């Protein structure tokens, strides 16, 4: 079952019109989506999944030939990407490069204009949850009730027990009865994380969830997210503008530029990652150099590893300064 078809379970009730303003479209099955010319059209039906997969790989999400326009502006064009099950993909890029749009497509909050987006859940639909830039907690519900949002209500306390367990995992069990307004920014994002995890997602989408937090809280959140990712084994896609964060968390760092993948860098550093090592700094520098480059082919495009390591140290030092 495709994500596009899956997301139709969120489609509005007919006749309720506040919803039409939310840009939620009534969704058509993915078969109706036109593929761009020149893009190989892949079979969509679930029965054909096995033939699509490459041997030895197990994708959770597969995008091919995806295009998305807002008005005349093309945000993503002819975009191909595979996300392996259980992997942690970090997506970086300048503002407006299309990285958030990509995440919203994966979440089913937006629909592609063309191309195919396929998701492979282990039992039926791929259970997907999203963490937003702001925590988006309901201010009129207690922390515990926020975590329980969307869980079945009357099942003999099972939902409550699950929500409490997940709150404990993010270290906020004693704040269960507080209002969101009584929490700090970092605590709010931890509640949002708990709210996502309580649904046992197979795919967790993180849309710059740490962007508004202070540097120390960010580092704590990195450790928390990494630990929960390893324990729960979900697939994670993190959109961030912080290359340091991307290298610290991602198995892959994907740079998107002008709606296309400009760099797809594997990160093989051992976890948990020591951020002070030369290898970390070299990798961060390499990605950062590539991000800062205005256009592909500009001078500095082919930095040797040594050069980029030197450049990276300068960057790393400045990062440390603002982190402190």
């Amino acid at each position, binding site marked *: 079952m495709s994500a596009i078809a899956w997301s139709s379970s969120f489609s509005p009730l007919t006749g309720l019109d506040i919803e039409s303003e*939310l840009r939620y479209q009534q969704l058509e099955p993915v078969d109706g989506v036109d593929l761009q010319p020149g893009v190989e059209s892949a079979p969509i039906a679930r029965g054909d999944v096995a033939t699509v997969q490459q041997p030895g790989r197990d994708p959770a999400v597969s995008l091919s030939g995806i295009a998305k326009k807002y008005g005349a502006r093309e945000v993503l064009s002819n975009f191909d990407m595979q996300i392996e099950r259980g992997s942690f993909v970090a997506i970086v890029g300048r503002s407006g490069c299309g990285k958030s749009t990509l995440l919203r497509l994966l979440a089913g909050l937006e629909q592609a204009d063309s191309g195919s987006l396929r998701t492979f859940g282990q039992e039926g639909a791929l259970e997907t949850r999203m963490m937003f830039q702001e925590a988006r907690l309901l*201010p009129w519900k207690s922390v515990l009730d926020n975590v329980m949002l969307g869980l079945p209500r009357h099942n003999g306390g099972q939902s409550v027990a699950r929500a409490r367990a997940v709150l404990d995992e993010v270290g906020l069990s004693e704040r269960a009865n*507080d209002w969101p*307004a*009584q929490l700090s920014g970092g605590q709010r994002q931890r509640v949002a994380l708990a*709210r996502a995890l309580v649904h046992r997602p197979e795919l967790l989408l993180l849309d710059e969830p740490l962007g508004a937090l202070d540097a120390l809280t960010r580092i704590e959140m990195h450790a928390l997210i990494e630990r929960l990712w390893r324990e729960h084994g979900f697939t994670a896609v993190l959109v961030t503008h912080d290359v340091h964060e991307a290298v610290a968390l991602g198995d892959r760092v994907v740079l998107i530029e002008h709606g296309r993948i400009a760099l797809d860098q594997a990160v093989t550093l051992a976890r948990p990652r020591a951020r002070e090592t030369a290898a970390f700094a070299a990798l961060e520098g390499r990605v950062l150099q590539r991000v800062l480059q205005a256009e592909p082919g500009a001078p500095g495009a082919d930095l040797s590893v040594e050069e980029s390591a030197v450049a990276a140290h300068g960057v790393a030092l400045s990062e440390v300064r603002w982190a402190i």
Partner: protein
Amino acid sequence: MSIKYILRERFAPWLLPLLILLAWELSTRAGTLSSHILPEPLAVVKAAWQLIQSGEMWVDVKVSAERALAGLAIGGSLGLLFGLATGLFRPLEIAFDSTIQMVRNIPVLATIPLVILWFGIDESAKLFLVALGVFFPIYINTYHGIRAVDRGLIEMARSYGLSGWALYRDVILPGALPSILVGLRFGLGLMWVTLIVAETISAQSGIGYMTMNAREFLQTDVVLVGILLYALLGKLADVLVKALEHGLLRWHPAYQQGVKA
């Protein structure tokens, strides 16, 4: 909390009103202020006491309060209903909102001659005026409250599988509630204003009747009792809504006195 703090926060605000009362009492006693313009405060208290003892006051307050509450019930529930309908359903918004916004600009009191022609000068005219006065603030604030619910929260709730009634119960209505309560407070203010005018024009009972009657006999002390009664009842209504807000908006940062994390 020190005694100094309590003195400053609790008693200092009452200092000015007490001084004014004292100056008023002294100037009427000295004869600089004629009792036809303003009777001395003690006379007002005496008049009030007499009205309480004779039972007149209780009857008039009861009649006025009943009118006010009936008008509030009719106008308020209609305002809430229309506000919810136009806030939630786009076709109804298109159909009703611009008309209501046009009618809203007519001062309720300007319709009095027409209302007297339609209903005469009996109870239904007063009910109509109060209901009309209450309707608009509650309608507008309900409508705007629903429109102003954070779209991000609705998107989030929907992506967590909430839709239909659950979405209204958990997200849209609680989000609109602060605004609806603001509407209720404005509505209560207008409720007393319209009631006072309606009762002053024509009534055989009620606080307005009491004051107009007293005016005929130059009983300025009774007139003042009536004015003070309106002030007291208005304040009472405001206190009740505040208590309602404290109960319903416990989650709101503005109503939390506890320590911040």
